[in-house]
C-alpha cells in the first residue's frame, strides 16, 4: 500500500469525525480510491486493520456500493445517466455515441486505457438531461454534438500526454 502522505493525513483526520471507527469505512474507501484509482484486496485488508474490523466488513461494503471499484478503470471516467428523465431527452443515444467514439462497452476500459464508460442511474440533475459526469465534473444538456466535443477534448488530452 503506497498511499500519499496527504491521503494518510486525511484518513487520520476523518476517523476523528465519528464516535465509532467503523463509520469511517466509506470515507476511507473514497480516500483510498481517489489516491490509487481502485480498491484492491490489499487495500481492503489495510482499511480493515486501520478501523479494527475484519476484511469481510470492508469487502461487503465495497460490493454493495456501485461507486467502489475492484479493478482499475481508464484514465478518464465517463458516466452517462441512464434513468428516465435523461432517457426521455436522449441519454441512450449519448451513451451510444461515447461508446462509438472510444470503441468500448459500458463497464470496460477502452483498448488504449484512456476511458471507462459507465451507464449509471440518476445523477440528480434531471432537468438538464441528458447529463454526463466526466471524472468529478457534471456536463448538462449533452446532445450528440456536445458528446463529440467532449470526446474530442478527452482524445486531445491523451495525445498531448503521449507526445511530450
Amino acid at each position, binding site marked *: 500500500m503506497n498511499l500519499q502522505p496527504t491521503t494518510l493525513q486525511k484518513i487520520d483526520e476523518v476517523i476523528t469525525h465519528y464516535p465509532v471507527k467503523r463509520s469511517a*469505512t*466509506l470515507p476511507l474507501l473514497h480516500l483510498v480510491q481517489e489516491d490509487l484509482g481502485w480498491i484492491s484486496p490489499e487495500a481492503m485488508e489495510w482499511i480493515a486493520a486501520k478501523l479494527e474490523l475484519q476484511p469481510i466488513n470492508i469487502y461487503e*461494503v465495497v460490493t454493495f*456500493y456501485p*461507486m467502489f471499484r475492484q479493478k482499475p478503470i481508464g484514465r478518464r471516467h465517463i458516466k452517462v445517466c441512464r434513468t428516465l428523465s435523461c432517457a*426521455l431527452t436522449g441519454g*441512450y443515444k449519448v451513451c451510444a455515441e461515447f461508446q462509438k467514439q472510444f470503441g468500448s462497452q459500458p463497464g470496460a476500459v477502452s483498448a488504449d486505457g484512456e476511458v471507462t464508460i459507465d451507464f449509471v*442511474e440518476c445523477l440528480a440533475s434531471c432537468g438538464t438531461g441528458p447529463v454526463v459526469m466526466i471524472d468529478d465534473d457534471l456536463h448538462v444538456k449533452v446532445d450528440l454534438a456536445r458528446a463529440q466535443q467532449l470526446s474530442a477534448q478527452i482524445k486531445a488530452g491523451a495525445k498531448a500526454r503521449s507526445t511530450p
Partner: protein
Amino acid sequence: MPAPDQHRLIFAHIDEPGYSHDLACYQKHGGYAVMKRAFARKPEELIDEVKRSGLRGRGGAGFPCGVKWSLVDRKSGKPIYLIVNADESEPGTFKDRYIIHQDPHQLLEGTLIACFANNVKQAYIYIRGEMPLGARILEKAIAEARAANLVGPNILGTSYSCEIYVHRGAGAYICGEETGLIESLEGKRANPRIKPPYFPAVLGLYQCPTIVNNVETLCHVKHIADMGGEAYTKIGTPNNTGTRIFCVSGHVQRPGYYEFEAGKITLGQLLYEVCGGPLPGRAFKAVIPGGSSAKILRFGERFKGKRKVGAELVDYDWGVEDVPMDFDSLGMIGTMGGSGGVIVMDDSVNMVEALANINAFYAHESCGQCTPCREGSLWMKKITTRMVHGTARAEDAALLKSVADQIPGRTICAFGEACSWPTQSFLAKFGDEFKNYSETKQGSPAPATLI
C-alpha cells in the same frame, strides 16, 4: 386562470448574478442573523414554532416535521443526532443540488437551528457520492463557519456547541431511505432496518435518538425561525403550508426548478404556462408528479370526489391539469407529491419502454434483503425488458400486475411500495398499450430512444 408568480423562499438567491456560496456573501444578505436570534430563545419555543408552522417534510413522505421532532426520545440520556438527508436519489428530483451548490450556508443555518432546538451536539450531512463538488462546497462552508465561531464549540459565545461533518455516500439509491442511510453512516451496507423497533427517533444512529430531515426541510426551518410558525402558515394552503419546489424534467419546453406556494398552482398551470407546454408538434401524454415512484397520471383522465375546503365538503371534478400541487390533492387522486420531481412524457413515448426504464432502476437499486422486493423488482424488469425487445408473451401484462401486487406491504422498507407503484399505475392507466403487446409488438415512434 393565469399561474401565480413564483414565491422564492428557499431559492431566493439561486442563480442570482453575483451571489456566491461563501460566508461573506451569505452574511452580506443577512446570513446567520436568524440563528443568532434563535439561540437567544428557549429550544422548546423553536420546536413549537415548527409545530405551529405545519411544515411537512420535503424528502418524500410529507411527514410533519414538528411531530417528528416531538417523537424524539429525550429521556434516554443518550446523545441525540441529526442527519441531513442530502442523498437526493429519487429520480426526477434535483432541488437539493442547487441549495448545496449555491447556498450551502442557508442549509447550515437551518441545520444549526434544528440542532439547537433539539439539543443536538453532532450533526452529519449525508450527501450522495455523485456530488463530489457539493461535498467540497459543504466542507468549505463548514470550515468557514467554524472559523467564524458559527459551528463548533461555544457558538457565538453561548454555552451551546455543535459539530457538523459531511459524509459521502457511494452511489446507492437506498441510502436515501432514512434507516438505510443510518446503516450506511455506520459504515455498513445500506440495508434498511425494521420499524419497529428501529424508529430513528428512538433507536437511530449508534442506537441513539436521531432526527433525519431532508435538505429543503431544514432550509424551511430557518425561515420558520425567522418569520414565526404562525406567519409561515400564511404561505401556501391549510395543511400544505409554505412553498414547494417543483423539479420539472422530460418533455416540456422549459424544464427546471420552480418554487411556488404549496397548493396555489395547478399541474396544468405549471406545465403549460410556467414550463411552456409540450415540445413543438407534441401533446402531453402522461406525468409522474412526485419522483419516479409516484403513480403516473394520464392526460385525459378525470378525478371526482369530495374534498374539504375550510369546514365544508365540496365536490371536485378534475382533469390532470386542474389538480392543485400539494400533498393532499395529489394524494386524493391516487398519487403523491413526494419529493417534488415532476417527470413529463409526451405522445412520442411508448409506455412499455418508459416502464422498462423505471423497472431497470428499481431492480438495480433494491438492497436485496426482502424476497418480494429483490425478486419482484427483478422480474418486473425482466418482463418489461423482454416486451421492449420484441419477445413479449401473451400473459405478460397480467403477470406484471400479479408480481407488482405481491410486493407492497410485505417488505422492510417503503422501497417495496416505491418499486411496485410504477408498474401498478402504468398498467392501470395504460393497460391498452401493455395488453396486446405480444401481438402488436409496437415499434417505438421515431424520437423515442429509451431502451
